[in-house]
């Protein structure tokens, strides 16, 4: 039996530098597979809506304007998203991917959490149709 099994660990630690990382001044490289903000590319989309149906947090809304002309608008609610990437694996046409760099998503207002993807004019049309004039536009194409 030993008097103290970890005494040598403790003594060695006395002479070590602090382990604290100086975030946000020095940022660690995020892992390759980190699941951050979702991105949508309508060019291959077939409008099958599987991403919407499979999302466990109801964070996705796919608005079909013209299926043949591939005019889709994706409304992504980043505040509801659980970053599980089920939509990414459900999509057969690789329209969705999750960024491994955009993970600092905190904001002071709710507006930045509703993100629209798609054609610029389609997004404008949808925003004008849905929202009254006083809401701030949250478009981020």
């Amino acid at each position: 039996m030993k008097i103290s099994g970890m005494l040598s660990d403790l003594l060695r630690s006395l002479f070590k530098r602090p382990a604290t990382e100086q975030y946000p001044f020095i940022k660690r490289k995020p892992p390759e597979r980190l699941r951050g903000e979702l991105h949508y590319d309508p060019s291959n989309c077939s409008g099958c809506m599987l991403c919407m149906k499979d999302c466990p947090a109801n964070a996705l809304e796919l608005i079909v304007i013209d299926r043949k002309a591939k005019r889709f608008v994706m409304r992504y609610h980043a505040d509801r998203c659980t970053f599980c990437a089920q939509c990414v694996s459900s999509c057969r046409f690789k329209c969705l991917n999750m960024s491994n760099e955009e993970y600092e998503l905190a904001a002071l207002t709710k507006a930045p959490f509703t993100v629209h993807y798609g054609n610029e004019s389609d997004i404008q049309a949808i925003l004008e149709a849905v929202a009254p004039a006083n809401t701030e536009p949250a478009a981020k194409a």
Partner: protein
Amino acid sequence: MEANKFIVPIGPQHPALKEPGHFEFTVDGEVVTDATIRLGYVHRGVERGTEDRTWVQNLYLIERICGICSHIHATAYALGVEKLAGVSAPPRAQAIRELFCELERIHSHLLWVGVAAHEAGFDALFMYSWRDRETVMDLLEGLSGNRVHYSCNVLGGVKFDIDDTQRDTILRGLEFLEQRTQHYLDVVTNDAAFLRRTRGVGVMTREQAIEYGTVGPVARASGVERDVRVDAPYLAYDQFPVKTITDTAGDLEARFAVRVRELFESYRVIREILDNLPRSELAAKMPRKIPPGEAISRVEAPRGELFYFIKSNGGEKPERVKVRTPSICNFGSVGRLTIGHQLADAPMILAGIDPCFSCNDRAVYITRNGDTQRWSWDDLCRYGVANAE
């Protein structure tokens, strides 16, 4: 003597554990003469919630039942649903799932070693084991992109593959962890001060372990050879088997030793999987609607046997999902084992079963007229049965 009875209430909010549970210890001086437990403070209605979500959506709700063993919950659910659908995940997916299970076991056991050491007042071990746990958390983050909810499962397979760089990273991490685990095994079995808190404390004989219905490392520390990975192999456990680690002492020291020695078994099996990873697809095709039927799936979570009952009526959503977690099986033993010990040993004995309150609170137990504050052994049994039905 009723007038002289002194009851020490602990919890539901208390400084020792992070999760809510209420305990009442009747004491005679410093010695515990009776103990009752009350659970149900973190009932979240997950089982009812599953009935409103599709099969796919449930995977992520189920994963959030536990923040420590998230992957094993999702795996148990996925295995059950795959059984109902008559689909089996491809061999590579099975092996990757097993790999995640074992990495999760490593992080869970290292976490427990820390928490239990903290309960004993041995904070050096707590901090060092948690520092080393970061290694396995980083491995999991590298593999899946997330530290806690890996979401590596999809119905029918897995999302992530393992490439050669990741393989090397895992092997490097395991080498470091193995070295540290050897050190911790030495500490928990040799440190004189620590042994005074663990040796001969909370002794549970083999017969008692069976009578109280304990599972997992708690039962194995009392010499009960009970491990779902060996008894009823699932995933790739028949291809990459593990050995059951048991101890005969049945005290807290044995529970430490069993869990730490299980880590070596996990390191070995992970290396074996990485060396012989089968080549195949990552996921099989799953139907959107699951054929009607009932399925049971049993897996070995880090804390013991995890049980899922899944019933389908042929639709897009399950009709019933029933979860029985290992903590509920082990709680009964705490009330019995603390009797005769010092009050100061009670938190250690409780921590010894590695309780996970959020996991096990599947039912709330209310009696309108009567004392709901104190649960006897019979009440606990009834709670367990209500949980199972």
